[in-house]
């Protein structure tokens, strides 16, 4: 075959065993468009048979958030065939018959937890086949931009009944219990070098001007097109499948408005994005919050260190009126205390000691973690902030428990292999919000940001009304600062309309004007994939005979058919009859291996050692795992290069470890219950508080803007209440400026460093630094 030489470079070697790897899947290439409300993707999988007999290749992957498969085209020498959408049992039968007949058969079937098996059977020796799979997926939308994740590897997951084994050094296998059906999971390779190559080229199509595009996961190239769109691609020639692609797009203005239009069939499909700022500001109300930390083995290393640091940073924002609790779980649950506690200095100190002892160990019994939190919150309810990698199986069961717990769960996902789909659902199904970061990002900063917005939503009881427009899915029960409201609407051809949004204490009118647009179909599909994901999340059991399950399957089948999208009930299948197909030939099954997710310890899932049925192993001969507890280099889009500064920009994932944000986090953790910084007397405390405040302001955090807005509000509150402020002219002027969001010019970083080193700032030194004069103030 002509194209064979193109891929012949892939005679990869397993670095652990020295054995040659035969790659049944050569390449995975992601293309598509990113819109503010979702992504329309096409993934090219290139398969090649290097064996002497036909092969059947199984590739397992996890769906991104709110995703559904639309269709695929299978292409080879002399054929190009589109898949059909069929009820799963029918699709499996068609696939099996195709295999039996010796035809090239392909089946994309979805299982629980959003895991998909893409099967391509009867690829002949030397033959090359490409499968172009279309996927609709959601994005993590924020007021000022969006984050897109696409899984290039599948995370191994915890389930009490999962079996796992290290089949050879550096290669792990995992098997799920029977209730998960006949899903085949990949082999996980500790060293992903030599596995299939991955790449991507995506178009960013957001209506607002793009301020920055960055990636904490991959080195990227950004090309700015004349039509205002941006093309983002992998900077190196190729990469390996050991982590998600994560793209951050930050816009200059808030993302707001209507996308979509009237489709070819005359119906209108659109999405409305309403930024959270449109609902007004959060009223600072007392928080009742429990931090739930996942201490499972898979959190070992950077993720657990990041989670600890994140909770400590949040503790600094607690005020006298707030109550908090801390829960750490693996397959056991440990609580800091039975009940919620006030955020006094002593209690926070206790929490710090508790956190310091939280290291990674057992399984991930996520439900027991948040149920313990629910017990702690009691009948008064409250918020739960879960910090987890979400690497669990049987997510539908966990979601069912979460729905009945009566608590609002917010998720901060940490990890490089996406469990974004699950954590998004966990938050959404309980009325919370979710963020998912890689362990190489500022998880602590994201935690502080999330912490500031939860507890008191900007709007509750939001309702939508509009003539001749139907909306689905239902609206979230509450809107939180930073996370916009997204509505999917459908009209029967009406082109003009008004949408009225009402909520407790407010209302808003938004005009909708629709024109003929090809975008209508994309929006319809995105709405469908969201609805299918929601319905699947509510299907707990998969028993064939259960009457309720049959009814659920029927409903899912109808929804799938309506939108033309695959689901657990409907699969995609294609059978290609070729000349010379030999019936009855048994293809050899090959499962595509993937890389162990970056920052997840191989040993957390696949234990080393030797079996007794082989020569006796010696524990002492196995080198103990040495883990560098230092956090890996961290990424922050704020420090990236502006998208407008060049036509061709390279981003690096390397970042300096200690920066302004670390300093601010450390200051935040010192704030006392009355909102002031520590000191031996009132004057020393006033000066220290002013130094900290100036530091936050100088970095752009005010009482209403920025991740540290709660901290700033509390520092301001302390200075306002201090008796000396009213009597001292200079102090009053400084406070007035600070309340407007300005800090006097000065080297506040230097002063703060001294403060953190335990050196009190003298009154004289402080005022020398704070030369509060008109014209010298800096925002």
């Amino acid at each position: 075959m002509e194209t064979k030489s193109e891929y012949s470079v892939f005679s990869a070697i397993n670095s652990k065993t020295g054995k040659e790897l035969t790659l049944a899947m050569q390449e995975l290439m992601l293309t598509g468009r990113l819109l503010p409300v979702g992504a329309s993707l096409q993934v090219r999988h290139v398969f090649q048979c290097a064996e002497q007999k036909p092969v059947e290749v199984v590739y397992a992957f996890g769906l991104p958030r709110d995703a559904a498969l639309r269709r695929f085209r299978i292409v080879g020498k002399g054929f190009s065939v589109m898949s059909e959408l069929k009820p799963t049992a029918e699709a499996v039968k068609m696939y099996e018959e195709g295999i039996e007949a010796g035809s090239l058969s392909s089946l994309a079937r979805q299982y629980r937890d959003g895991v998909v098996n893409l099967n391509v059977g009867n690829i002949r020796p030397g033959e090359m086949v490409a499968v172009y799979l279309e996927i609709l997926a959601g994005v993590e939308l924020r007021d000022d931009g969006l984050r897109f994740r696409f899984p290039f590897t599948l995370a191994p997951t915890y389930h009490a009944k999962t079996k796992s084994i290290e089949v050879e050094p550096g290669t792990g296998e995992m098997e799920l219990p029977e209730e998960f059906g006949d899903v085949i999971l990949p082999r996980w390779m500790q060293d992903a070098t030599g596995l299939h190559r991955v790449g991507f080229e995506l178009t960013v199509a957001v209506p607002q001007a793009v301020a920055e595009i960055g990636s904490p996961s991959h080195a990227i190239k950004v090309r700015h097109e004349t039509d205002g769109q941006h093309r983002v691609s992998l900077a190196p020639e190729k990469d390996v499948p050991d982590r998600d692609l994560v793209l951050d797009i930050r816009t200059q203005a808030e993302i707001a408005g209507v996308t979509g239009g009237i489709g070819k069939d005359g119906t209108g499909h659109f999405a409305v994005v309403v930024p959270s700022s449109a609902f007004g500001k959060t009223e600072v109300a007392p928080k009742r919050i429990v931090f739930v930390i996942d201490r499972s083995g898979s959190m070992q290393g950077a993720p657990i260190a990041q989670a600890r640091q994140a909770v400590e940073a949040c503790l600094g924002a607690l005020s006298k009126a707030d109550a908090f609790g801390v829960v750490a779980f693996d397959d056991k649950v440990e609580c800091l205390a039975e009940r919620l506690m006030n955020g006094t200095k002593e209690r926070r100190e206790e929490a710090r000691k508790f956190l310091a002892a939280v290291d990674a160990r057992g399984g991930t019994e996520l439900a027991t973690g948040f149920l313990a939190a629910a017990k702690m919150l009691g009948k008064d309810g409250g918020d739960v902030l879960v910090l987890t990698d979400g690497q669990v199986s049987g997510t539908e069961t966990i979601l069912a428990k979460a729905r009945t717990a009566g608590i609002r769960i917010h998720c901060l996902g940490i990890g490089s292999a996406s469990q974004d789909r699950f954590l998004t659902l966990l938050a959404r199904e309980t009325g919370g919000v979710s963020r998912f970061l890689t362990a190489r990002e500022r998880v602590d900063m994201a935690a502080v940001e999330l912490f500031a917005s939860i507890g008191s939503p900007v709007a509750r009881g939001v309702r939508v009304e509009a003539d001749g427009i139907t909306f689905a899915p239902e609206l979230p029960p509450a809107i939180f600062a930073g996370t916009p409201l997204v509505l999917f609407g459908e009209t029967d051809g009406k082109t003009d309309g008004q949408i009225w949004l009402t909520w407790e204490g407010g209302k808003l009118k938004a005009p909708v004007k629709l024109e003929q647009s090809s975008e209508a179909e994309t929006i319809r599909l995105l709405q469908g994939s969201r609805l299918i994901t929601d319905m699947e999340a509510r299907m707990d059991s998969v028993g064939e005979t259960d009457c309720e399950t049959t009814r659920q399957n029927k409903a899912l089948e109808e929804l799938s058919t309506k939108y033309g999208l695959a689901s657990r009930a409907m699969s995609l299948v294609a059978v290609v009859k070729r000349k010379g197909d030999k019936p009855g030939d048994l293809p050899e099954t090959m499962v595509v291996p993937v890389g162990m997710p970056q920052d997840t310890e191989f040993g957390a899932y696949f234990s080393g050692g030797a079996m007794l049925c082989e020569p006796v192993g010696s524990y002492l001969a196995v080198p103990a795992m040495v883990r560098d507890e230092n956090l890996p280099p961290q990424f922050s889009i704020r420090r990236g290069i502006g998208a407008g500064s060049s036509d061709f920009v390279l981003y690096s994932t390397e970042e300096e470890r200690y920066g302004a944000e670390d300093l601010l986090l450390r200051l935040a953790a010192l704030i006392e219950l009355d909102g002031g910084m520590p000191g031996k007397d009132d004057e020393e405390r006033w000066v220290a508080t002013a130094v900290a405040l100036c530091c936050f302001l100088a970095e752009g955090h005010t009482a209403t803007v920025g991740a540290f807005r709660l901290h700033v509000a509390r520092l301001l509150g302390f200075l306002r209440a201090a008796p000396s402020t009213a009597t001292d002219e200079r102090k009053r002027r400084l406070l007035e400026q600070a309340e407007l969001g300005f800090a006097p010019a000065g080297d506040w970083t230097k002063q703060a460093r001294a403060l953190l080193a335990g050196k009190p700032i003298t009154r004289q030194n402080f005022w020398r630094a704070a030369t509060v004069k008109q014209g010298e103030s800096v925002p």
Partner: protein
Amino acid sequence: MSMNSQKATEELSLAELAEKAGVPGRTIRFYIAKGLMPGPFKAGRGAFYGAEHLQRLAEIKQWQAKGLTLTEIARQIAGSAQPMKVMETPTAYWSYQLAPDVTVQVRADASPWRLRQIQRVLRDTAQRLAQPTTEEANDGNEK
């Protein structure tokens, strides 16, 4: 399982075998590729499966229920000329030598999470065994 020496009493297609065993066709092909069971009698158009394939599929289910992974089952099959009896209890153990005179065995079907916990305890114990205890040190002083 010696397929060639025994005449199969029943000739089943893959679909029929799948139906009878309650195991999907794709899973059966996967088992064959993994060496858990032999391929069909004859190749190509006349390929068929027999009662022994059916029996093997039932055995695999039993071994799985005993906590063995497919790879472990395949290894056992490859290592034994005789058909493997389904054991009452798992006999696969990890062996950890903590000191020249101490060996500890741990059941291999423990979950990786449990195994890690056990390993931590063993590591601590190994370290403690490697150091003289206070009493021993005192004994040495007295002598």
